[in-house]
Structures are given as structure tokens and as C-alpha cells.
């Protein structure tokens, strides 16, 4: 290359290229990588009243569910109720097939008649035996027969009386059996015990059912409640009569209100959840289906004003909780004791901070006392 400028010019050109290069190099070495200061945001501790709340999820359930079915094995003859029907108390929903029941009742009636006949026979025998006994007693008084004969006749009388009792009881038994079968025949009908809504039809006519198996299920729609589960750790303060907001999966526009009816005495030890029942103040229209998921927020009573910090500022160090603060240009970890928190991320500070103190909330890296920091409005990389 032929250089047209004199030496000074060439040096100048080289300087113009190299110096910015070196400057860039030094900038890169100092400002990026592990030597750079860490951006953080700060906020002031405020004295504020917070309204803590509890959050749980649950399912809609009916308070009372009635499963209606026969008390003995049989076949379904007819079922009038359909799912979704509203029924009244005493309404016949369906009927079981009597099968051989009528024949058995007839049999029992025949047996009853037979028992009655047997009773007559026993009665006749007893009357005769009594007469015989009396007669022979009279004969004994005139010494016409032996005592043994009298004893035999007396014995016969006793036997006849026993036979009569037996026939009487037998008649009673057969009668009772017959009545039992008659009652059973009455029980063939499946009857709604209360007003309600049919929610399930578990078998169709013609199906054979065992005793105790449900054929129709009923609920009382006015008794819908939400069976809610709260994490035990976050269930402090849960009690009856607290107001609740219920968010149903299907309805997110109108939020029905309700209240806690009761906190279940038995918690779920396996999932570590506390159970509670929340009832609606007013049932939503249309009725939500049983089994739908709901999110329930229970509002706890508001607490008096106290120093409050965002929960993002709370960090763990050396086994204790605390916050980072700027103190005379150095980072310092201040241990704190926390109080109640609300669902929006505000937590009360019982000890360690006062209103007006500055705490570090967000940081681009994990902080330690040796870091240099620079205070920014928003951590770089976070879009507004």
C-alpha cells in the first residue's frame, strides 16, 4: 500500500482506530460479566391496613343426596323418573317387578288356610281330650277304672292342649309371613322421600338389582353448597360465618357471594387440607351442576394498619427471613418477623422495619453483602 499521508497522519489514523477499540474493550471488561453492578428496585415500607383472605378450591355438592333403591334383589319393572325431573315428596318414581311375589303371597294364603284348618283340628282334639279327661275323672271317683287310665287321659289332654298352642302359633307365624310379603309388595314402589331433583338414573327397566343398589338418585337443589379445601398452612383464621366470594368455572362474570357454613372437624390428613362448607347467599340461576369446580375466596376481618412490604422483598438467609436494605452505600440484610399477609402479596412486618424504611424488592441477581448495586425503576428485561 502506498501511503500518501506523512507519518503524523498515519499515526493519527491508527490512533483513531485503536483507541476506541481499546476503550470498548475496557468498557466490556468492566461493565458486563461478574464485575458489573446489580440493578435493583426499592420501595418504601408503608403503614397500611391489609385485608387478608383465604383461597381454596372446591366442588359444588348437594347437602343431601338420596339414593333410592329396593330393599331386596329384584328386577326393575318400570321407572318413570328422568334425570332433571323435579319430584315431590311421596311421588312414585318407579316400580320393581314382583316376579314371584304374588305367587308366594298366594302360597302364604294357602298356608294360612292350612294353618287355620290345623288349628281347628287341634281345637277339636283338645275339646275331645278334655271331655275324656273329665269323664274318666268322674269314673275314677266311682272306682270304675284304674288310675293309670285316668293318668293316660290326662296326659292326652295335655298333649292336645300343647298341640292347640302349636297350631295357634303356627297360624300366627303364617299370618306374619303373609303380611311380610304383602308389605314387601307395597315396597315394590320406589317413592321419593322429599321434594327434589332427579340427578341420576342408575339402571333401566329390566335390569336386575341387588338389595341396597341405588336405582334413582335425588338431591335437594336448594341445599347446594361448595365443599372447599384449603391448604392447612394457609387456613389460619378460617371460621364459620365469614363472607366468601365464589368463582365458578363456568361463570366468571357474576361472582356469587356466600358465607362459610362450617369448618369440618375432620381434615384431610393425606393431602394436608382443611375442609369447609360454603353456602351461597343466593343460588345462581341456572343452577350450577353438582361436581363443577369452584374457587372460593374467604375474606378475613381487616387488620389494623401496620408496616407492610411486598412479599417479593422477603428473602431467606442463614435460616431466618429478612429483607435487604441500603445502608450508607452498603448492602445490609435486616432480619424481620412477619405477620399476616393478604392475597395480593402484601405482608405485615411485626418486627424489624418501620414505615418509611427503604427495602430492596426486585434484583437482577441473588444478592450478597459484597455486591455493588445500582437502583433502577424496572429491572432490565422486564417489559412493562
Amino acid at each position: 500500500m502506498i501511503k500518501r499521508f506523512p507519518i503524523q497522519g498515519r499515526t493519527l489514523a491508527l490512533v483513531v482506530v485503536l483507541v476506541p477499540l481499546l476503550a470498548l474493550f475496557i468498557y466490556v471488561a468492566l461493565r458486563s460479566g461478574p464485575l458489573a453492578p446489580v440493578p435493583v428496585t426499592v420501595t418504601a415500607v408503608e403503614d397500611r391496613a391489609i385485608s387478608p383472605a383465604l383461597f381454596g378450591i372446591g366442588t359444588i355438592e348437594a347437602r343431601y343426596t338420596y339414593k333410592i333403591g329396593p330393599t331386596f334383589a329384584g328386577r326393575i319393572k318400570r321407572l318413570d323418573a328422568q334425570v332433571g325431573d323435579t319430584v315431590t315428596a311421596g311421588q312414585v318414581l318407579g316400580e320393581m317387578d314382583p316376579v314371584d311375589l304374588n305367587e308366594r303371597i298366594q302360597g302364604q294364603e294357602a298356608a294360612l288356610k292350612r294353618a287355620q284348618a290345623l288349628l281347628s283340628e287341634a281345637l277339636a282334639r283338645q275339646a275331645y281330650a278334655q271331655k275324656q279327661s273329665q269323664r274318666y275323672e268322674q269314673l275314677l271317683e266311682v272306682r270304675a277304672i284304674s288310675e293309670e287310665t285316668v293318668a293316660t287321659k290326662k296326659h292326652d289332654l295335655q298333649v292336645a292342649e300343647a298341640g292347640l298352642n302349636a297350631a295357634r302359633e303356627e297360624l300366627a307365624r303364617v299370618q306374619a309371613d303373609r303380611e311380610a310379603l304383602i308389605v314387601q309388595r307395597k315396597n315394590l314402589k320406589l317413592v321419593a322421600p322429599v321434594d327434589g331433583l332427579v340427578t341420576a338414573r342408575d339402571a333401566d327397566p329390566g335390569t336386575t338389582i341387588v338389595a341396597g343398589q341405588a336405582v334413582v338418585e335425588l338431591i335437594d337443589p336448594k341445599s347446594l353448597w361448595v365443599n372447599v379445601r384449603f391448604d392447612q398452612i394457609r387456613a389460619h383464621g378460617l371460621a364459620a360465618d365469614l363472607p366468601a366470594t365464589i368463582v365458578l368455572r363456568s361463570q366468571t362474570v357474576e361472582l356469587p357471594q356466600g358465607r362459610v357454613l362450617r369448618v369440618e372437624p375432620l381434615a384431610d390428613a393425606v393431602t394436608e387440607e382443611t375442609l369447609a362448607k360454603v353456602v351461597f347467599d343466593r343460588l345462581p340461576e341456572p343452577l350450577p351442576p353438582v361436581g363443577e369446580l369452584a374457587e372460593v375466596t374467604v375474606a378475613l376481618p381487616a387488620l389494623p394498619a401496620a408496616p407492610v412490604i411486598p412479599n417479593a422483598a422477603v428473602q431467606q438467609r442463614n435460616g431466618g427471613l429478612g429483607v435487604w436494605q441500603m445502608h450508607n452505600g452498603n448492602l445490609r440484610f435486616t432480619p424481620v418477623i412477619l405477620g399476616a399477609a393478604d392475597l395480593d402479596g402484601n405482608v405485615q412486618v411485626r418486627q424489624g422495619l418501620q414505615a418509611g424504611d427503604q427495602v430492596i424488592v426486585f434484583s437482577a441477581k441473588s444478592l450478597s453483602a459484597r455486591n455493588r448495586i445500582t437502583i433502577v425503576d424496572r429491572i432490565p428485561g422486564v417489559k412493562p
Partner: protein
Amino acid sequence: MISLAGRDIMHAWGKFVFTGVGLGLLIGITLSMAGIYRGMVDDGKVLLDNSGADLWVVQKDTLGPYAESSSIYDDTWRSIRTMPGVARAANVTYLTMQVRQGERDVRAMVTGIMAGESVAPGWPPYLVAGRQITRGHYEAIADLASGFKLGDRLQIRRNHYTVVGLTRRMVSSGGDPMIFIPLKDAQEAQFLKDNDAIRQQRRRTAENPAFNRPQVPDLLDAVIASQSTNPYVNAVLVRIDSGHAAEKVAESIRRWKRLTVYTRAQMEEILIGKLIATSARQIAMFLVILSVVSAAIVAFIIYTLTLGKIREIAVLKLIGTKNRTIVGLIMQQSIALGLIGFVVGKITATLLMAPIFPKYVLLEPMDSIIGFIAVVVICILASIIAIQAALKVDPAEAIGG
């Protein structure tokens, strides 16, 4: 005495700087490769740091929870919590899966964290925006690397979650961003399939006569219910009381609970020794190849420059220049080329490659210093060929004919 090398460089400075820039890009790639390796190691370290745990309790004889899948019952933490030396114990689940938001799909490591008052082991130790999770369900904290913002609604399996907080540098050992959701939701996500599969399963169970007995009407419901619950978690994270040695507490858990327990040092070895080992070897090979290529390029350039000066070198030798001076001329040029290359390479690596590379690139000052020394050494060695050629020159060649 004037600097012959300096004068020569100034005379052909354009060529020099141009070559230096080209070499610099190569060096930049080399530095970036080292940065990628450091980034991978840092991903592993950051994962361990951010979990806030001193011990990891996992299924017996597994390398879990990061290197191998591990399942333990979710009530194991209670018995661990009562052991001496344990300050806190918390369940945690990890599942790498696709997380949807609208039309977008992001691969993330979904981490289930236990409900608690605040910062339990497994929780993100610091945030860059938003707040920690307060509700027991349907809230999420996402890492900036996932691209999600505060208020986004994510879909994980069948549930929707609202992003309430953002973190930075919370990644899995593979570099996938982490998304924190409540543990119970994560257990469900790990286990519950989509609706079609659930229907199939119920149908199969109902057709099985062992489970569907008419005399026992509730048996089928009970079996289906048990199939739909997930009582497992991947690990229990343990924080130790100050004053207790990690290894001793680990040993007592191992002996009495018959689980596998890893201390921080052992987890690091697993993550870095086993997970990253293959990638580390690949990168080491690349580094060697790039260094060899760089050395070859420098050698070639310097040799060419020297050959172009053969006549001048003969004249210099004839008029009495020491061999030492000529060797110095060549070597100084080689080192100057290396310096320009290093400066350009460092700037390229930091300002160009590190921000755009999809994985985390960590450029440590120590690596730059070592790289600098390596560049200088390579330049010195690469100039040997040219030096040999220069030394062989016969001063008599200047006197022609």
C-alpha cells in the same frame, strides 16, 4: 534503536488490522465456546443455588431429581422434618413439558412448590417483578427466558394459571426456563392425562369384573378415584440448621429413612460430572480445533509476511543486523496480530455473541486472561516457521550474480 516491527506494522497497518479483525472473529468464537461451557456449568449451579436446599432427598438408588426421574411419597417430608438438624423440609416436583399461552408454546421446567408462609426451599429466592404465590392454586411465577409477562394466562395440562411474578436466571440444567406453580397443581399436571385418556381408563376399569362388582356398588368409584390421585413427588428439599454438618444429617436420613440423600457437593458433581460431561467434551474438542485453526492462520499469515520481506532480511543481515533483532521483528509482528485479534475477539464475544446465542454464555475474566495468554503463546509458536525461514536466509543473496 528504532522498532523495526513497529515500523513495518505502521507501513502496512490496513492489512494488519484487517487480518487482525478476521483472526479476532475466530478468537471471539473460541471465547464464546468457553463461555457456553461456563454457562452450562452455571446453569447447573444456579439451579442448585436457587433451590435453596442443603440436601436433596430422592428415591433410593436414583440420581434424581434432575439427572434421573425419582418418585417418593408426598408425606415423606413429614418424617424428614422431625429429624435432628433439619430446619425446613419441602416437597418439590419437576416436569419438563410444553406450556401454552394463546397460540404460543414454550418448553419449560414446571416446578411444583409447597404452600407455605414464605420462601420455603424450592421457592424462587428472588424476583424481578410481581410477587410470590399466595393462593394455593392456579397462580404461577415464570422466568424471563420463557417470554411470559405479568398477567399472562398459561395453560398447563388442563388448568389455567395467571403469571403473578417473574424471575431471572431460574433455569433447568438444560437451560429451559422454570415456571413455579403450587405443588398440588403440579402433582396433578405430572399425572393427569387429557380427557380422552381418562375416559379410556375409566372404561377399562369399568369393564374389569374384579373392580366392577354389582354387590359392592361403590367399589368402582373408589378404584377410579384412587387411579386419579397422585401421591408422589420428585424430591424433598431440606435446609439444615446452622451448627449441623450437612453430611451427618444426610447420613442419618439415609440410614433411618432408607432414601438416597445428596449434599450440595454431590449434586454438583452429578449435574456437572454426568449431565454436562458429554457437552463438555464436545466443547473441549471444539476449543482445541479452533485453537489449532487459529494457530495455523497466524502461522500462515506471518510466514507470508516474512516471505515477502526475504530480500530486506538478506540486506539487514548483510549490513550487520543481529539475528536476534530479525527474530524479534517477526515475533513482535505475530504478537501484535494476536493482540488485535484478542481485543476484537473479546469485544465480539461480549457484545455480539453472548446476547444472541440461545443458551446462557458466561464470560469470566479469568477465561479472558487465560485466553490472552494462550493467544500470545500461540502467536509465538506460530511464528517459529517464519523465523526458521528468516534465519536460513543467506546474506550473500543480497549480492547478486
